[in-house]
């Protein structure tokens, strides 16, 4: 064992509640063992140690709750058909115990930058961004904050009521949902997230002072990174996490 391995702490938590967001997305609320305490930053993830096939499978899950919420941690994930980690978790029930290490990750949001902030999430990529936005809107009013949230259909816009409520009470926060394949009746934005970002933040104006926090699954995240950086946004002003 290396020094870093031997010094890491393994945590235990009980599944206190399971919330079904839609047909294949669930949140698991994990109550940390009472003698353990976890301190983390908005945006970090837990590394779950899943006993699968006679071994331990390590799978990362972003923390969707806020650091201020104490020892009740929320993770939010999709059921992936060929994903042993999500299949294991979707077979769990309330009262069962999970083990994990953490917190991990450098995609974090400590203090809002003194510039317009754009959060871009796709599907369950909202998980690490949720505590970031909660932190950002908890402060006094400042530069504009935007959430651009993409999903396939409306049911994939997780925590939607929360975003709409923030937009009501925080004049500096705006919520823009975008669907890639809406069913009939959707009157909001639809189409490609990358194309929308190009229209709004690249060809839309010459302002290159914005800061971006991007999270999603797959190549779309790095496409957005490349689009924004090549358009002239500062490298370190385009933060992202690709799962």
């Amino acid at each position, binding site marked *: 064992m*290396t*020094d*870093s391995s031997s010094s890491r702490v393994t945590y235990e938590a009980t599944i206190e509640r399971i919330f079904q967001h839609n047909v294949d997305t669930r949140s698991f609320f994990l109550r940390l063992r009472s003698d353990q305490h976890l301190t983390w930053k908005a945006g970090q993830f837990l*590394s779950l140690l899943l006993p699968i096939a006679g071994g331990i499978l390590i799978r990362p899950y972003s923390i969707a709750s806020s650091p201020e919420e104490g020892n009740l941690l929320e993770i939010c994930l999709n059921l992936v058909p060929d994903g042993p980690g999500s299949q294991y978790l979707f077979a769990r029930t309330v009262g069962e115990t999970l083990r994990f290490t953490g917190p991990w*990750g*450098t995609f974090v949001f400590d203090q809002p930058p003194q510039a317009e902030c754009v959060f871009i999430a796709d599907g369950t990529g909202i998980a690490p961004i949720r505590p970031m936005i909660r932190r950002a809107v908890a402060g006094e009013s400042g530069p504009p904050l935007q959430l651009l949230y993409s999903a396939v259909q409306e049911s994939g816009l997780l925590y939607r009521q929360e975003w709409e409520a923030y937009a009501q009470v925080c004049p500096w926060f705006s919520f823009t949902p975008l669907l890639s394949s809406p069913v009939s009746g959707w009157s909001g934005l639809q189409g490609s997230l990358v194309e929308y970002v190009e229209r709004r933040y690249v060809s839309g104006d010459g302002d290159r002072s914005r800061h971006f926090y991007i999270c999603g699954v797959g190549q779309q995240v*790095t496409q957005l990174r490349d689009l924004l950086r090549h358009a002239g946004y500062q490298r370190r002003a385009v933060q992202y996490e690709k799962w």
Partner: protein
Amino acid sequence: MAKLRILYETGEPEKIIEFDPAQAPFQHDGQPGSILDVLLGHGIELEHACGGNCACTTCHVIVKKGMAHLSENSETEDDLLDKAPGLTPTSRLGCQAVINDDDEVVVMVPRYTINQQV
């Protein structure tokens, strides 16, 4: 056959693995044929909190020999290394650095990671 030699900044004994790069992947985490893949596939632990998905820096290694035999860094890897403690000009993420040739690569596992905020 390729050879991967692992040194530890903590001073624990080095380990040597001989392997055929064409047989990769050796397990399921990290890029096939990566330093992480080779290590885990031969029973040697290397921290990889994100599951080898290039989303953290816990598999940071410092290449002491054989940089030319490794795949090139991606921008994502460079962005993460930017935040790694103890960054050096020959730092790589074990989950991304694929050993391409039948030659010797020597890496050092650094002592600490700052990812864990406890």
